[in-house]
């Protein structure tokens, strides 16, 4: 027997969570873009999409984040810290790839120096993932040794039952159990089976790719130039990536007062690594694309024992020139 949350009880649950002080967030289809956003009613959710166009990452690492306000007076500088917004949240209906993305970035934001902007939000968020029953041509979680029902990064995993009538509940963490204790009145015991998760075909052999990437000889392979020839150097793949975490720090204001912000930045941009002297270690687009792939599948796992890719496929799905991680790794598999 497993507990089950029926869809028609979701409004009650949302109300209950909200009255317990949680902001309820989930997949929402906007007029022209989908993403994760707060809702007040279950009708606001859209569970039918493969995955939202915007990544879950932005709820933890927003594209622009004020960090400090400075005011400069004579012989004095006042600074006020901005902290991440307080308040508990429940992300209901995350995709497994998005939830995994958060877990992948945790060690990066936490090694030695803890980035409180990230962890404040992480600690106050309950991630309820719904296993995928559909996928598109770009989904590739299985190629990353993850799955449509991966539990990485999730506090609760829900498995849909037939006809979208509800979800079987697998509580994974204490945080998840606490959140579901709040709505326990609305849950029922059931032996109904879950709809099988979607089969996502494996698109490349990750181990073979990693072996190739780890071979120092391949760093200078002409493959990099060929594969990235059509890359136009925009940052849409990195910005929509659930794990890309690079940022810039910028001051906005004048000599007297202003705000220091943390803004998304991307290794795709030529200026990203440009030294003041004009020397640029990664002066070509092929060097930058190589860095992105190497970072995700060679360097990052070398540091944190996990690939910096959860297989959501957004990079390929929205690339203006139809590039992406999938194609690159498929081509590497062939080498």
């Amino acid at each position, binding site marked *: 027997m497993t507990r089950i949350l029926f869809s028609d009880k979701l409004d009650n649950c949302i109300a209950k969570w909200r009255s317990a002080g949680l902001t309820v967030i989930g997949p929402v289809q906007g007029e022209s873009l989908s993403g994760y956003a707060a809702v007040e009613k279950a009708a606001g959710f859209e569970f039918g999409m493969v995955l939202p166009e915007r990544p879950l990452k932005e709820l933890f690492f927003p594209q622009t984040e004020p*960090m*400090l306000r*400075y005011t*400069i007076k004579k*012989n*004095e*500088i006042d*600074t006020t*810290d901005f*902290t991440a917004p307080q308040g508990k949240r429940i992300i209901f209906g995350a995709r497994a790839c998005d939830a995994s993305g958060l877990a992948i970035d945790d060690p*990066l*934001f936490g*090694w*030695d*120096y*803890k*980035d*409180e902007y990230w962890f404040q939000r992480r600690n106050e968020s309950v991630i309820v993932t719904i296993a995928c029953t559909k996928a598109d041509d770009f989904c590739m979680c299985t190629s990353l040794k993850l799955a449509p029902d991966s539990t990485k990064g999730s506090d609760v995993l829900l498995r849909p039952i037939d006809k979208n009538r509800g979800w079987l509940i697998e509580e994974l963490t204490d945080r998840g159990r606490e959140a579901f204790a709040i709505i326990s009145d609305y849950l029922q015991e059931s032996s109904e089976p879950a709809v099988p998760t979607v089969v996502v075909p494996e698109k490349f052999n990750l181990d073979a790719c990693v072996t190739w990437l780890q071979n*120092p000889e391949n*760093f*200078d392979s002409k493959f990099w130039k060929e594969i990235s020839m059509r890359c136009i150097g925009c940052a849409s793949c990195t910005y929509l990536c659930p794990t890309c*975490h*690079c*940022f*810039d*720090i*910028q*001051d906005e*204001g*004048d*000599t*007297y007062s*202003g705000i*220091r912000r*943390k803004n998304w*930045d991307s*290794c795709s941009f030529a200026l*990203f*690594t*440009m*030294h*003041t*002297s004009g*020397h640029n*270690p*990664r002066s070509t687009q092929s*060097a930058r694309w190589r*860095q992105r792939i*190497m*970072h995700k599948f*060679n*360097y990052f796992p*070398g*540091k944190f024992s996990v690939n910096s890719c959860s297989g959501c496929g957004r990079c390929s799905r929205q690339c203006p020139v139809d590039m992406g991680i999938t194609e690159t790794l498929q081509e590497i598999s062939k080498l």
Partner: protein
Amino acid sequence: MTENIQSTQQNIYKPAIMKIVGRHDEAPGVRTMRLEFQDPADHEQFKKTFRTGMFGLYGVYGEGESTFCVASPETRKEYIECTFRQSGRVTSALANADIGDLVTFRGPYGNRFPIEEFHGKNLLFISGGIALPPTRSVIWSCLDQREKFGKVTIVYGARTVADLVYKHELDEWQERADVELVLTVDPGGESPDWKHRVGFVPTVLEEAAPSPDNCIAVICGPPIMIKFTLISLKKLGFDEKNVYTTLENRMKCGVGKCGRCNVGSVYVCKEGPVFTAAEVSRMPAADL
């Protein structure tokens, strides 16, 4: 070599406020500033953590932060000295700041030169142009406890005589009997009264031919100088493991998050900026 220090600050991006207490023009566009902490707690933290080789992010609110080394030695922690060339937005703002003005400092970050391991050894410092500041931090850390080290040789070169930095300290080292200073400028960069060498650093180094026996070499300079100096050191018989250098990459966070300073798998801000030549040779050359 990695040795990182836990931050006690809640907001790791919040800098300490520093007062400019001294300024000195070293060369055209190159300035040294002496900074003092305004908050004793920040100063205590600095005294606890700073070791030679570490870097910081120096900033002016409204303009941003810029990364360079701490040029003062670990034997003198009452202040921070930094030397920079005015080139970008932040360094221009720093250059425009006057004595008494307040600027910011975030750090010290990164690893350090393992100076204890240099005890009892001969030291060879090789530096070019604006890259003397990181070397200078090591030089003074050693000269301030001179008895612990063997022979000290400093090879320093710049494009022209005017581009030599720390001229007053060069004079001081010149006069010390326990330091051998070899100065050089690039051909064409000499002034009529120039009494020292003329030639590129690697060539001058090979002529000076310091012995690699029981010797540690520290080299800092522009990438092209480092490249050829490493070749010269190899010719002289130096083991890559006994040659240290610092990498100065573009950085924003300084604490291993922003992703900018990566060279291959190395986060320069955390695993560096100090590396042995052996470590550098394992990095992808094209990414340096």
